């Protein structure tokens, strides 16, 4: 971000913030999560720990709310009035929604979190100074802060040999969050670039989607009209953009797709499909 750039593109810059940053996206990575298939089994979450070098904080710090689970399975009970939860539990896999108009981005004083041409909210660990404003301004509360250094406590030797060298281990004072497994995206994009072709649908699979035993998570590029995820979004009439633009998109109210906190205008990249229950 140079001054020239700001001055020359001021209107784009302002408008970009409202409508989701870039206008020249290369990809827009997105997910579709079928909540009817989510069984809350934690496979995604554990896969995320394995792939992304997430620190294990232990009981005390977990109690304090300092756990680092980028991907967490929230569990809700919906039928409070009944003696038993007759329709089971409501599981919600919650990770960074990679919002198109992300609220975390404008508030970072040093632009450590920014919008990539891939439609991701990137977090530059080296640039982060730990003001934690981004996390405060995240309605989904999916940004996790390194309240401690976890090198020794989380990875006693030889556990550290498991660490994924494709991404760094974060030190204290740095914010982190789900990246949609950007290291996998990067590898595939580089490979496609070398082979002079486009990234194919299904070539990139984040660790969570890969692990999910019921395949509830579909990942892909919504700019590729033929991708599974784009088709799902289209089928469920969920459109990218902020609420003012998208609220009339849904012609058929029966369709199951929705985005959480749509009304907050943050343009999340994760579409959830409603959980279904049969009334017996």
């Amino acid at each position, binding site marked *: *971000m*140079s*001054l020239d750039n*700001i001055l020359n593109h001021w209107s784009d810059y302002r408008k970009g*913030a409202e409508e989701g940053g870039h206008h020249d996206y290369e990809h827009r990575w997105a997910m579709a999560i079928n909540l009817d298939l989510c069984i809350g089994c934690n496979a995604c979450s554990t896969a995320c720990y394995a792939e992304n070098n997430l620190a294990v904080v232990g009981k005390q*710090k977990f109690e*304090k*709310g*300092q*756990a680092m689970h980028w991907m*967490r399975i*929230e569990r809700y009970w919906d039928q409070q009035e009944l003696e038993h939860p007759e329709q089971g539990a409501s599981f*919600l896999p*919650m990770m960074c929604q990679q919002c198109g108009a992300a*609220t975390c981005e*404008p*508030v*970072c*004083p*040093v*632009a450590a979190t920014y919008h990539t041409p891939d439609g991701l909210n990137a977090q530059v660990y080296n*640039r*982060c*100074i*730990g*003001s*934690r*404003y981004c*996390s*405060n*301004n995240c*309605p*989904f*509360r999916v*940004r*996790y*802060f*390194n*309240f*401690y*250094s976890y090198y020794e406590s989380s990875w006693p030797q030889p556990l550290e040999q498991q660490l994924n060298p494709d991404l760094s281990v974060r030190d*204290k*004072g*740095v*914010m982190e969050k789900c990246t949609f497994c950007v290291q996998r995206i990067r590898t595939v994009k580089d490979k496609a670039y070398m082979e002079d072709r486009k990234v194919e649908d299904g070539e990139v699979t984040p660790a969570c989607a890969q692990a999910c035993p019921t395949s509830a998570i579909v990942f892909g590029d919504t700019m590729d009209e033929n991708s599974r995820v784009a088709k799902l979004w289209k089928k469920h009439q969920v459109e990218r953009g902020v609420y003012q633009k998208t609220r009339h998109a849904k012609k058929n109210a029966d369709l199951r797709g929705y985005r959480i*906190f749509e009304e*907050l205008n*943050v343009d999340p990249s994760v579409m959830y499909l409603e959980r279904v229950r049969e009334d017996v």
Partner: protein
Amino acid sequence: MTMVTEKDINEQIAWAKINTDVLKSMENPRPAYWVTLAVCLAMISTAVIAEYIQYTTGMGPANLNNPHMWDMYIATFVFWIGMSHSGTLLSAILHLIHADWRKPIYRFAEAMTTFSLMTAGLFPIIHLGRVWNMYWVLPYVSDRGHWPNFRSPLVWDAFAISTYLSASMLFLFVGMIPDLAICRDNTTGWRKKLYTVLSLGWVGSDQQWRNFRKIYLLMACFLIPLAVSVHSIVSADFAMSIMPGWHITTFPPYFVAGALYSGCAAIITLFILLRYFFRFEEYMTLPIMEKTCKLTFAIAMVWTYLNLVEFASVWYGHDIYNKELLIAKATGPYAWVFWTMIFCGSVLPFALAFRSLRRHMPTMFIVSLGLNLGMFFERWMIVAPTLSMAHEPHQWDVMWGSIVEWAIVFGSFGWFGMLFLIFVKVFPSVSMYEVKEMVFHRRRSQGEEDVARMTDHAKPATQEGT
């Protein structure tokens, strides 16, 4: 109704006595002074130890968590920023509207502004996860072309606070020049050297007074919008966010009102302390106290009104997140803080409406502390409940901070106290030349025409320079 108008100041005070009284306050600290200074230093040391722990281990020991990424550090920051508005209000706004009664008390108020800003400025730094990189928020020249993110209110904060701090320090300094010259002429040793440098060769010539008046007026005009904008910008830290309880249109005026409020309350506290300890009864008179109290009461009512506006707009706005949060503030785990804030902020100021109470210094002392407690809680109630109960119910949490966090918060009071204690012994805490002006004007308004008598020059001259 006719009331006996009391005089703000007794015009019979000899000019020489003004000098002696004020200069006397700068020497020979009493034991109470040293005890207070020691307490302040102890508080600072505790905070330094706490900060050392935090610096070496990370922000964890402060009990911060997801969702409480901010807590008392930011609340205390806002508190001190608010405190800093008093000086500007008294010296700049009241100067412009020619409220003469401000003159004996504006100097320490201005000092308060500077020191509370110096205290406030520490908190954004302390609360950073990577303190050592704090300068990254400034647009310095970098070979990598890195710039801060100008969209972030935290960057605005950095600009606003540093501008306000330098401006208010200058204002304090410039306003002190004639007095420093008096000090220069009455001291020996290191003090003489110091005041010689600081008084910038002031001799009290006509040209100097003319320039002085111009620059002082100009700076006053410059400082007022600055003060208003600073707290508006601090409110933007919250108002520019998307969080319930923060994303509120009335936040800028609400913050400014709260700032003036806590600043005035602090002025009352320090007014009483200085009056008592330095025997300034003749300068910090009860009529001035009364005027300050009335001003505080008016601001308290503005603050209360803005609070009610906020509650009403939340209530009728039907935004479930905001409404839920408002109810939670009043009934949830933070309720005792909330209601203490309401009591101290909106009920307690009614004590200022009674003349007899206004004139009773012990009562006023306690009331002023109560008002500031309310204001401190107000900042707490802005920061913590929103984080504890935002959009995502899975991440709700109630957090009370840790010993590390509170040690640093209390340490900031020690820091402020230390700076102020040093100030009152190094610089005149009452503006001598302006008290003389007051006396001059009173004498003239009483029909005195002899300039020499008006300026005491008929008597053996005490000092030149004023």
